[in-house]
């Protein structure tokens, strides 16, 4: 699929010349020059901290460049606020959606928009939204509340909001991170349609396959500088990965056990027996899940976000007591409570580390002892020994290979990758039986993901059971010995990785199975949720 031909002499939609942005002690961007042509999809590749987000924040007026020039549609521009960028026709869809959850889709589309009619009655707004939705080919339900929508639907609202404001250049930050394969295909189809009208798209991604599929050209940033721009047709994923990281990336076979690795256990470390969970509103979010996790294996959990992953993770780690059914730890009924699970050797790397695994405003030391503050040498008899705490924090930082100048510094000052490493090592320390990791590689770059996967493989070889929840099927297939698939709170199947392939898992994720009997139960699950 080549982009449509563009008349010679058409200026690039966006031209960056020698853009630089400095932060104290850090070069976020320097000497970045870049053209985005009319009718093309440009992929922006780079590791975490390569300066992709900073560059896009400069383009969308969140930051002011310290040096350089920005030319949009042939005119030099300087945006001092995101509003000016939107007015000029540059729209950005962030990784974390900027929608009002309690508002309807129509209200979100019309929020802060100069063309919102004075008569902003629901009927008028919804009719306008419907019309926009059809014009741009992004189906949405105008009267639905955003909080009730899936991530993919929310993303459509976000994109529609940007398109409605007549964006010529659409910037997407890791748009497929929250989408199912089929939702991603829908998105790509819509992006191609947008491109066909002579508009331009910049897509930030870590996923090389996607970049190969959707983009016309690829620009790679490393250490804040541009390494180069290539036609995607001339690129191979391997070459892109090597250029991005700056060295050859060796694909490690994680399924290969090291010598002397503990064998897969014969007695399950943790078992769920007919476990069901209802949320506050009485909706069943997890229904009749029966599952065994053995020591020395990695069990992957696939599924579209919002199909019971959070609840499963919380039941496995003791955060939520099951409404019905039992949880067995090492064959015996588990003592309830997250703290008790941790004491019994269950580690937990949660989905949103800043919101639940860490207290961002507290020191690194305080955060590193979260799991062991009650045990000697830090705790015991109600005391808290600050020096022992610091000692433990140093130890964890050492193993995690995170260089920390000051342990009294708030943990939010660390980069996302370093936070994730510290949390992972903290949890691996206590995971004698089981480690539950939800979306462990979300937001991490290739190098950091490889490190994280290595941690898991090493832990598996020590005989610990690991549950990895992820939407990235590649990741699951690379890591897992078995893969369970969740759909509408039901565990559709647990497949041996050897017999699993993406197509089959994809079908199960969508709730389709070969047998009609399970179809029935799926339909039931859909009604329940």
């Amino acid at each position, binding site marked *: 699929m080549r982009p449509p031909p563009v008349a010679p002499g058409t200026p690039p939609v966006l031209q960056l*010349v*020698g853009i*630089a942005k*400095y932060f*104290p*002690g*850090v*070069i976020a961007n*320097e000497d970045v020059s870049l053209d985005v042509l009319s009718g093309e999809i440009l992929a922006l590749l780079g590791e975490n901290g390569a300066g992709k987000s900073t560059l896009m924040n400069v383009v969308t007026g969140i930051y002011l460049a*310290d*040096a*350089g*020039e920005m030319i*949009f*549609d042939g*005119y*030099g*521009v*300087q945006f001092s606020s995101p509003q000016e960028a939107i*007015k*000029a*026709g540059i729209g950005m869809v962030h990784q974390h959606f900027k929608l009002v959850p309690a508002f309807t889709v129509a209200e979100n589309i019309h929020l802060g928009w100069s063309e919102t009619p004075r008569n902003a009655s629901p009927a008028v707004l919804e009719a306008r939204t419907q019309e926009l939705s059809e014009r741009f080919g992004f189906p949405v339900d105008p009267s639905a509340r955003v909080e009730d929508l899936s991530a993919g639907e929310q993303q459509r609202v976000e994109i529609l909001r940007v398109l409605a404001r007549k964006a010529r250049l659409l910037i997407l930050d890791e748009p497929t991170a929250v989408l199912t394969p089929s939702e991603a295909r829908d998105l790509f189809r819509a992006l191609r349609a947008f491109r066909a009208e002579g508009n331009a798209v910049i897509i930030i991604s870590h996923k090389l396959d996607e970049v190969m599929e959707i983009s016309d050209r690829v620009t790679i940033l490393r250490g804040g500088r541009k390494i180069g721009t290539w036609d995607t047709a001339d690129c191979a994923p391997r070459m892109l990965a090597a250029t991005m990281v700056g060295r050859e990336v060796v694909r490690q076979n994680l399924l290969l056990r090291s010598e002397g690795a503990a064998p897969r256990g014969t007695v399950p470390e943790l078992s769920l027996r007919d476990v069901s969970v209802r949320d506050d509103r009485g909706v069943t979010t997890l229904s009749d899940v029966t599952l065994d996790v053995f020591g020395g294996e990695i069990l992957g959990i696939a599924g579209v976000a919002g199909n019971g992953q959070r609840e499963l993770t919380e039941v496995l780690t*003791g*955060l939520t007591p099951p409404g019905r059914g039992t949880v067995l730890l090492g064959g015996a009924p588990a003592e309830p*409570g*997250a*703290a*008790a*699970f*941790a004491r019994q050797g269950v580690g*937990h790397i*949660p989905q949103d580390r800043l*919101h*639940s*695994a*860490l*207290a*961002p*405003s*507290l020191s690194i030391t*305080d955060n590193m*002892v*979260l*799991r062991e*503050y*009650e045990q000697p040498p830090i*705790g015991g008899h*109600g*005391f*808290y*020994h*600050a020096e022992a705490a610091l000692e433990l924090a140093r130890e964890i930082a050492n193993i995690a290979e995170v260089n920390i100048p000051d342990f009294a*510094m*708030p943990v*939010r*000052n660390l980069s996302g990758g370093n936070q994730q490493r510290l949390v992972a090592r903290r949890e691996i320390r206590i995971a004698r039986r089981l480690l539950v990791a939800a979306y462990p590689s979300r937001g991490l770059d290739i190098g950091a993901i490889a490190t994280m996967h290595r941690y898991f493989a090493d832990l598996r070889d020590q005989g610990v059971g690991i549950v990895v929840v992820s939407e990235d099927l590649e990741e699951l297939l690379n890591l897992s010995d078995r893969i369970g698939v969740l759909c509408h709170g039901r565990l559709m199947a647990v497949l041996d990785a050897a017999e699993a392939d993406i197509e089959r898992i994809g079908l199960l994720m969508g709730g389709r199975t070969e047998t009609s009997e399970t179809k029935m139960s799926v339909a039931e699950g859909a009604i329940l949720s």
Partner: protein
Amino acid sequence: MTRFQRFPTAPARLVLAWRAAALVAAALIIGLLLALSGRNVFELAVLVLKSTIGSRFGLEDLALFMTPLILTGSAVTVTSRIGLWNIGGEGQFYLGAIGAAGVGLYMPGSPIVVLPVMAVTAMLCGVAWIAVPTLARAYAGVNEIITTLLLNFVAGLLTYWLATGPWRDRVTGALASTGRIHVAIPEFWGVVHWGFPIALLVAGGLAAIMTWTSWGYEVRISGANPGAARYAGMPTRARIIAVMLLSGALAALAGMFEVAGTVHRLQGGMADNFGYLGIVVAVLARRSCLAVIPAALLMALILDAAIVLQTRQLAATVVLAITGLVLLLIAIGDELAHYRPVTPAVRLPPSAPVATPKVTT
């Protein structure tokens, strides 16, 4: 090309330096205003210094002011550590005073017995007073700021009613107070009673609990991020309840010290804003239990200075004006402490392109 940039953290050193500067600036502004209104600033300054830190009498007065301020300041500080605000220090102070006065008026016996009973009763009354806001917060998520605040007015009126009604002084016939209580906290230095060192010990003890116990750690985590506390399986609700009840007890203890150490009777309006000033003290102390002591000292200085100024025919409201000015300037100083000069990691090339003129499209 050095410029100032805002950092997410402010080092203690810078905070102290900026606060010192803020206090100097406040003193200069007050002096300037007094000079403009035709006062002899120098003479006033000498007088204020002499009657606060410059004389034994002044120091004793400061200690008497500091005693309740340390306790009400601690009451607000402990709740702020778990992310809550007890605005009801004034009410709990009154309840402490009521409880202490009730015991003191009607329980015969030697001070060795009566005083501890007064203290315990006072704290229990304070705990009871904050119990409803506490349970509403812990179990129903009701905002504690409003509930604790509103109960202050109830407590104030209750005190007036008791002091002028059932408990009124039938001997001397004084209108707005009860009779004199037969026991008193002994004095150890001039008019300064033992409540002062006890208040210092309480502040120090709280700091130790917050720093050296796993309970303090749990409070810290629960306050900084309830999500992380839940994740680690901490009993957050129990901690919220404990901290709020402790807070009520602290403010009530201040009321007991006023009754048994300074006023020796229950009087309407005797809380004298100590509860509200505790909020000021806590804001100045920035969540540190130990910093409550210097913060209370500063507040006591302001109160004392204002009394001196009143003897020179300045309006009583001057204390509010000074407090407001000091708080404003200190808030500005705290914000400025976040800024540090930075030099870009790399010098810009001299031929850096000139920014193009803004074009509206």
